[in-house]
């Protein structure tokens, strides 16, 4: 039912001409235009509540598939008006170059404001100390830079692409998640969240993390990217890369950022990335999925969870919960 031939380039989107006349559906008990139509409708509802309830929202943009999906949903929520808030990228300095290139192109096409704050600055100022050793990563260092940026711009709502199916501490998150002055998540005392009555009332100094795609699974996100023809960075597709093995995982050997022992052998492998985090904590998976259709098929059959290739979660059973208590998103 859904016109799958719509233009993919956002800047070339047609203005308000009538392309087709039909019924807009989001029900789960009828044939829907999209597999995830009900989730799309829910996310759009959440975006509009954020803009109505907060003074100064911001969208946390990493260049990964989840935040790219958020951008598309935000566009849909406010069209024909522009996205009414800026994007904020907390740059670890360890990004895949493809992601940054993609980010800049997207921002230009959308005409939205992009704010970049660097983890390197916090390191230079001595606010955080770079981790050392084999498993050093800047992933958890992002928190300080994020909290500083929220304070600097007085953002009261930070919209993120975290999903409940990613990780078991995230499975406990609310859609509007209240954080104190220190960005801390009080996991034992969360506000009840009932029906669609989202309570965004906060005190000065508090802020709210908002998760519009809380109820999406990894497969939902990929299906949406496929059905909506959303462009994503090339590292999500199979490509040849110089890699090495450690702890049964495949690491990129092309970037100096990833620490490698001299006896860890470099080999070319056909790989892709399932998540795009800090390079130093994101492993690749073997794949021959060159197209979005093949990626969707691969995810559907996968026996390993999405964050199975994220070393930051493997540090301890409560790694995510601890990071969240300290203000991580």
């Amino acid at each position, binding site marked *: 039912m859904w016109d799958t031939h719509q233009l993919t380039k956002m800047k070339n989107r047609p203005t308000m001409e009538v392309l087709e006349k039909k019924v807009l*559906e989001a029900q789960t008990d009828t044939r829907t235009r999209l597999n995830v139509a009900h989730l799309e409708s829910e996310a759009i509802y959440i975006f509009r509540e954020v803009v109505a309830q907060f003074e100064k929202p911001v969208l946390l943009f990493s260049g990964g598939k989840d935040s790219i999906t958020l951008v598309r949903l935000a566009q849909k929520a*406010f069209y024909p008006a522009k996205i009414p808030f800026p994007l904020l990228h907390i740059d670890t300095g360890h990004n895949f170059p493809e992601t940054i290139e993609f980010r800049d192109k997207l921002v230009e096409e959308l005409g939205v404001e992009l704010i970049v704050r660097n983890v390197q600055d916090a390191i230079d100022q001595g606010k955080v100390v770079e981790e050392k050793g084999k498993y050093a990563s800047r992933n958890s260092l992002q928190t300080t830079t994020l909290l500083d940026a929220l304070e600097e711009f007085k953002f009261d709502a930070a919209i993120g692409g975290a999903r409940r199916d990613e990780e078991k501490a995230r*499975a406990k998150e609310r859609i509007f998640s209240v954080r104190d002055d220190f960005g801390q998540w009080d996991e034992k005392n969360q506000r009840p969240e009932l029906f669609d009555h989202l309570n965004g009332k906060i005190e000065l100094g508090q802020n709210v993390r908002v998760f519009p795609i*809380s109820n999406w699974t990894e497969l939902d996100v990929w299906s949406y990217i496929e059905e909506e023809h959303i462009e994503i960075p090339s590292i999500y597709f199979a490509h040849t890369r110089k890699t090495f093995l450690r702890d049964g995982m495949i690491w990129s050997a092309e970037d100096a950022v990833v620490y490698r022992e001299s006896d860890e052998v470099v080999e070319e492998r056909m790989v892709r990335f399932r998540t795009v985090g800090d390079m130093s904590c994101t492993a690749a998976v073997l794949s021959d999925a060159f197209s979005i259709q093949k990626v969707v098929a691969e995810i559907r059959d996968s026996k390993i969870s999405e964050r*199975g290739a994220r070393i930051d979660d493997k540090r301890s059973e409560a790694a995510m*919960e601890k990071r969240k208590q300290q203000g991580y998103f």
Partner: protein
Amino acid sequence: MDVLKIATAGSVDDGKSTLIGRILYDTKSLTTDKLEAIETKSKANGFDYLDFSLATDGLVAEREQGITIDVAHIYFSTRKKSYIIADTPGHIEYTRNMVTGASTSQASIILVDARKGVIEQTYRHFFINNLLRVKDIIVAINKMDLVDFSENTFKAIKAEFQKLIDKSAYAEQNITFIPVSALQGDNVVEKSANTPWYSGETLLEHLEELNAQDLYEVSQVRFPVQTVIRPKKDEFHDFRGYAGKLYGGDLSVGDDITVLPSLTTSKVKEIHFFDKQFDTASRGSSFVLTLDDDVNVSRGDMIVKFEEKPQVAKQLTATVCWMDSKNLVPGANYFLQSGSNRILSKIKAIHGQVATDFSNIDESTNALQLNEIGSITIQLSKPLAFDSYKNNKASGSFILIDAQTNTTAGVGFID
């Protein structure tokens, strides 16, 4: 694909998290890395079986105490359906989190420990599911392995539960009883050889076949306006669109509408969704509509069909479930929020506390404590458009927000 939203309920240690872990395991929804983590941890904890609750109890405090504190949302799919399960806490202290989990569910699984039978939390949770009007209830009588899969025990518990059902006024509710062992997997996904006397469906078979109640069961159009879209672009110079989500019914171009509470009338001019226009929008969808006339519409207003008006009043009576440690008392001020509408309100009267065993209303009560349920009248500072909860779950429910602490202090279901 059909989506089914389910919540679990039942007392602490009745095995809710274990049941969900078992469903995930038997439907092969646990990925290798998660399963390995459960195996390692179960062994380290000295269990001689897999502790499936580890799959859902995501907080350190939960794993330490072996209980569920807050709702975990679990996702899995079969070839037939996508499932969203809210695994809710059983402890009475966390009842508010149980209500949160059940509020958006189409079906609930209430677990009963076969050794204990129907206990206080069982009827409390059944009562809350009735209050929330969850249409499909599955009573999973669990730990059958510990009562030698006794048919008599199953029948006795069923008979006891039936007494509660007889007191309930919600006649449309469907209730199914299934004997299970979440730990060993009997009648969860696979039919058990241990219960030859039971010829019904397994839990998963039942869920797969369930014709879930439509979440937006009403036919009447309710479109609360979230925000007004006014693009500051040349090509949309005069565009003034009203953005919202449709709760109930279908809305079409040309329909006569009324804006509440102002009672202004107009016609639907266009229905926009992103860069497309539609003739009709159906319930559940989020979109932007424009009107024929230049009328005054803002956030918090509700657009309805001309002939389908809800109530509009500055006073309402409702059943509330109290969720704050600060008691609800008459004369207190709260913000009442229903969807996009937030109105300063005063608690006019507390008529009494409702007993969760369907027995009576204690009219001597003049305050509601945490996790208590009562009947109250609220005075609003501005008129609100609303429905009875049994006619529309969205426009018939609200939350009360503490004006000092901003916390969500209670949830109300309008009479």
